[in-house]
């Protein structure tokens, strides 16, 4: 087993373990911190996939922004998010069965295909290319995303601002 494989397995186990803990923990705040850990694990995977730039973005956006937002929200509603409350609903068992079956189906579908085992050489300069793509090939989606962010911002303020 090569080094990258070992690294993958270690990071993968940590990521999935953290993810499982996120959805099962009784304390929502713990969930939020574990979520940040999951995000970090995914960032490491991105490094394994030769995209350190994306790993940095992952850390910035997911850990720096989304996790923090979530923790804020938990703090704001802390009274009802107290650790002693049961955090799973009445359909959890059925959900578990569904999730496991879904995983079975997806895993079967992905494994039956003959995917390439090895990477090819990287054909583009990922960071520079990405920068060019956003103002070139993907200029339109880029603009759309900026408008979406604006709308989300305006909407979030309208809905959540203190009276």
């Amino acid at each position: 087993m090569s080094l990258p494989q070992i690294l993958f397995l270690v990071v993968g186990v940590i990521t999935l373990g953290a993810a499982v803990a996120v959805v099962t923990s009784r304390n929502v705040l713990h969930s939020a911190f574990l979520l940040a850990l999951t995000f970090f694990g995914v960032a490491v995977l991105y490094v394994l996939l030769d995209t350190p730039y994306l790993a940095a973005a992952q850390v910035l956006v997911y850990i720096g922004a989304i996790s923090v937002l979530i923790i804020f929200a938990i703090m704001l509603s802390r009274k009802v998010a107290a650790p002693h409350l049961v955090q799973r609903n009445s359909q959890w068992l059925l959900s578990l069965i569904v999730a496991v079956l879904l995983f079975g189906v997806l895993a079967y579908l992905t494994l039956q295909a003959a995917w390439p085992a090895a990477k090819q050489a990287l054909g583009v300069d990922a960071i520079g290319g990405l920068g060019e793509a956003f103002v070139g090939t993907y200029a339109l989606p880029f603009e759309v995303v900026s408008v979406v962010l604006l709308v989300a911002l305006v909407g979030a303020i309208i809905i959540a601002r203190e009276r």
Partner: protein
Amino acid sequence: MVPLSWFLILGAALFCIGVYGVLSRRNAIGILMGVELILNAVNINLIAFWRYRTPDQLTGLVFAVFVMAIAAAEAAVGLALIIAIYRTRNTVIVEDVDLLKM
């Protein structure tokens, strides 16, 4: 060398964990975390496919970046809605939010 299928299985697992979280958490914020897991699973898929199948183009990479941006926008709106609900109802338990039915 890590085979592509390993990444895909990891993505599928993360996706299903997210689905379970979405279906089973009582707390709206918990459900939102499940959604974030789903989006991360998709991103793993996208980047892995990009790296192994079309490393000479940027499509998958760009797609993943856009998904991140949209995830942030979605989280902002979602959390705003959760806070609004908390203000009017004093709860973030989704099961208890069921005035509308029939």
